[in-house]
């Protein structure tokens, strides 16, 4: 399994989608020549071209380029969408299919058909026979590129033999505890050997005659098992066979290591199925040389492709399950614990199982961003050559996990953004030197999870958006009125409009300005947002805010006046009722908390959110010391703590909008929604203040 193979696989998945949408665009063009459909078709073809170029699929890239050029003329109204043109579009999409098939499965596309369609497209697009820009990329990343672990580093398979010695029980160690400890590490299949149990008359109850073989699928390191072995060192035999170690285990970077996840559902024959046949090696293909990566891949991690709607349905059902469980727990809370002991036990157990199901459902869908991020190194190198600029790419947060469908769909918009930054953002070496900058341009790609969102940022240290030129172009293209009064921010965002391009000549890299439009549309379709901040002369940052589609959060339910607000447990350091002496008032407005030798800002939730009727005096309230992701410690002031609950994060934005200070909402056991706090934004005083004063209403 090479990086190249993974990326190609994702590209082909994308192609399926792109060509599907291309087909429906053509279909709708037959009924009506709508600019939307032309734009959509253009973008699909453009994306296919981009990927094909990057992977050195020359025939596909060449054809897509001709197709795209023709679409561009249609878009600009320079070609007429007559019957012949429609036929050509239909034929073109068919041929694209064949060429994708050819690249994917090696099934040659009929040359005559391809050539004929290509000739017609070129003729109508007014292209030369062999346009130079058709091969913008240095193709062929070498096939022996570094093997990757990111997609499907499988769970380790351990084989454990556990045979208690004669003194184990007497020493107070019940094998039950050992087995339960092992079970907690992963999925265990326990087989007991009972043939040594003597007849009743001969039985010494203080000696254990049962022994066990345990097949454990776990992502836990072997030392976890070693610890158990040490604990019962001379009381029992405890042999651990870690099984054939997957090759990629060596490559796992520390950041990505803790939870390697399979890309898709394991098939029944997959390594994570209960290891009934113990003699079978775990992943035989993983040891094979990478001579035939495609083949090795299919053997190493058998996968089942699952329709995304099915996964979505699973996610929704799990969400409902959690809510129902919370409801049951609330109902039961009124019952007498002694009388209904077994009911409570069952409820406890159920909640644990539901949690496991939820984790499994989430992990099926989650993938590290590395899968997309890793392709950009090669992209940047290619673009360096193509533009003669020098660029250093820094990548951060590639172990952040996000929904699989999001990961898959991210490569296209991120590719566009990176190309844009290199093409338009980072200046030429001469210009940089003249401006006193490092001749090597800096591009920083980072990801971070913030509550129910993942924020991906792409920053360059280039020249920033040339607002004058952007505005001028937008006016030229009739996108804004000549007398429009736009703020800097609004001007910057004009680049997201369809058909916008600041490049004087169509370059082979950024294409025709379709990129930014596609970026915005793709991110919006995923329920996300793109924003842009730019500083003239210093560079630009694109921020993509993407929702984690299915997120289960352990939350502390707090009370402010009569409202519930939820704090992610993971961010809580301590909750306390402060002594008067620990409250320090530097000024009248903002008391601080003196805590373990440092001064923490107290964020009074009631004040931030203008909630009347809450406790004002910090010494009468509860202070929750929290550490927001990537931020400094601060103390949140609430009236009271209600308790801990696992909750399903629901989007506030789907039907409403983003609210500063909140990361989402959830539904509590009583069926009512409650709000989840966004600690990073609450913690950042400046941001919080500024946004409060911004008009909340529309218009």
């Amino acid at each position, binding site marked *: 399994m090479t990086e190249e193979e993974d990326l190609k696989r994702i590209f082909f998945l994308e192609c399926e989608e792109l060509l599907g949408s291309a087909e429906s665009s053509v279909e709708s063009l037959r009924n009506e020549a709508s600019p939307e459909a032309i734009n959509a078709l253009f973008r699909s073809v453009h994306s296919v071209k981009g990927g094909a170029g990057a992977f050195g699929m020359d025939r596909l890239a060449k054809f897509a380029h001709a197709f795209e050029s023709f679409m561009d003329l249609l878009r600009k109204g320079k070609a007429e969408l007559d019957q012949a043109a429609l036929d050509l579009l239909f034929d073109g999409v068919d041929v694209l299919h064949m060429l994708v098939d050819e690249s994917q499965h090696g099934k040659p596309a009929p040359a005559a058909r391809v050539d004929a369609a290509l000739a017609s497209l070129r003729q109508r697009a007014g292209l030369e026979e062999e346009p130079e820009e058709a091969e913008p990329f240095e193709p062929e990343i070498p096939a022996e590129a570094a093997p990757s672990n990111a997609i499907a580093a499988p769970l380790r398979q351990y084989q454990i033999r556990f045979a208690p010695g004669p003194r184990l029980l007497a020493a107070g160690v019940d*094998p039950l505890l050992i087995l339960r400890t092992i079970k907690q590490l992963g999925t265990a299949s326990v087989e*007991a050997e009972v043939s040594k149990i003597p007849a009743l008359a001969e039985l010494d109850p*203080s000696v*254990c005659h049962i022994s066990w073989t345990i097949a454990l699928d776990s992502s836990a390191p072997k030392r976890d098992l070693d610890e158990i072995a040490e604990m019962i060192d001379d009381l029992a035999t405890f042999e651990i066979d870690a099984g054939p170690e997957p090759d990629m285990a060596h490559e796992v970077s520390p950041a990505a290591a803790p939870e390697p996840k399979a890309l898709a559902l394991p098939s029944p024959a997959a390594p994570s199925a209960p290891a009934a046949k113990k003699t079978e090696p775990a992943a035989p293909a993983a040891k094979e040389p990478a001579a035939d990566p495609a083949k090795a891949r299919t053997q190493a991690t058998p996968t089942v492709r699952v329709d995304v709607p099915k996964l979505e349905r699973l996610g929704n059902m799990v969400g409902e399950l959690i809510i129902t469980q919370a409801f049951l727990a609330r109902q039961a809370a009124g019952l007498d614990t002694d009388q209904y002991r077994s009911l409570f036990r*069952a409820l406890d157990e159920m909640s644990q199982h539901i949690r496991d199901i939820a984790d499994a459902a989430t992990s099926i869908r989650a993938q590290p961003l590395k899968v997309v991020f890793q392709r950009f190194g090669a992209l940047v190198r290619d673009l360096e050559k193509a533009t003669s600029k020098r660029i250093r790419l820094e990548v951060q947060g590639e172990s952040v996990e996000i929904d699989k469908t999001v990961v898959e769909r991210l490569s296209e918009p991120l590719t566009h953004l990176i190309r844009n930054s290199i093409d338009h953002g980072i200046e030429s070496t001469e210009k940089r030197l003249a401006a006193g900058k490092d001749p090597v341009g800096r591009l920083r790609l980072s990801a971070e999870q913030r509550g129910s969102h993942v924020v991906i940022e792409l920053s360059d240290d280039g020249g920033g958006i040339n607002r004058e030129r952007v505005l001028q172009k937008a006016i030229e293209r009739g996108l804004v009125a000549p007398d429009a009064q736009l703020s800097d921010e609004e001007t910057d965002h004009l680049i997201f409009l369809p058909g916008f391009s600041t490049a004087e000549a169509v370059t082979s890299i950024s294409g025709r300005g379709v990129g930014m439009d596609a970026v915005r549309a793709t991110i919006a379709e995923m329920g996300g947002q793109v924003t842009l901040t730019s500083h003239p002369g210093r560079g630009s940052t694109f921020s993509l805010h993407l929702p984690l589609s299915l997120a289960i959060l352990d939350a502390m339910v707090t009370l402010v006046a009569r409202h519930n607000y939820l704090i992610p447990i993971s961010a809580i350091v301590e909750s306390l009722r402060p002594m008067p002496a620990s409250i320090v008032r530097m000024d009248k407005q903002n008391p601080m908390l003196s805590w373990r030798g440092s001064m923490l800002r107290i964020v009074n939730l009631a004040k931030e959110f203008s909630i009347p009727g809450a406790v004002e005096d910090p010494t009468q309230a509860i202070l929750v010391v929290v550490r927001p992701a990537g931020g400094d410690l601060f103390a949140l002031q609430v009236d009271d703590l209600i308790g801990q609950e696992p909750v399903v994060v629901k989007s506030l934005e789907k039907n409403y909008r983003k609210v500063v200070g909140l990361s989402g909402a959830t539904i509590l056991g009583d069926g009512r929604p409650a709000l989840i706090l966004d600690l990073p934004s609450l913690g950042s005083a400046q941001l919080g203040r500024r946004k409060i004063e911004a008009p909340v209403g529309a218009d």
Partner: protein
Amino acid sequence: MATVLTEFGILWGILTRRVLLGVRVGDPTPIGRFELPSTADLATMRDIKAALAERLEAGQSIHLDASQVEEPSTALIQLIESAAISYGARDLQVGLVSPSDALCQAYEDLGLFGALMTRTAAVAEP
């Protein structure tokens, strides 16, 4: 996969147990009864062993009321299974009546779910 199966297994066990309990069984030979204590430590184990041996001597099958077992141990389960072997050798049976969830879970965790099913089923067999 395995987790799902075992969870289902427990559920099935509980269901089976409940269903089977409803069946009244004809009683051709007298069946001994013994109530297992809530905690089965090594000390009580000797009493249980003695009781089991006594019935075996008398040639009676035995039904163990396991509804009160709260803290089962490997030793207890081993004792029950040892008895089952000895009883079985004489065509007698050791049945578990209303095993508590804790006991079911312990059987399950020890990889002896099949044995549990046999013990509970024994109660209903004529």
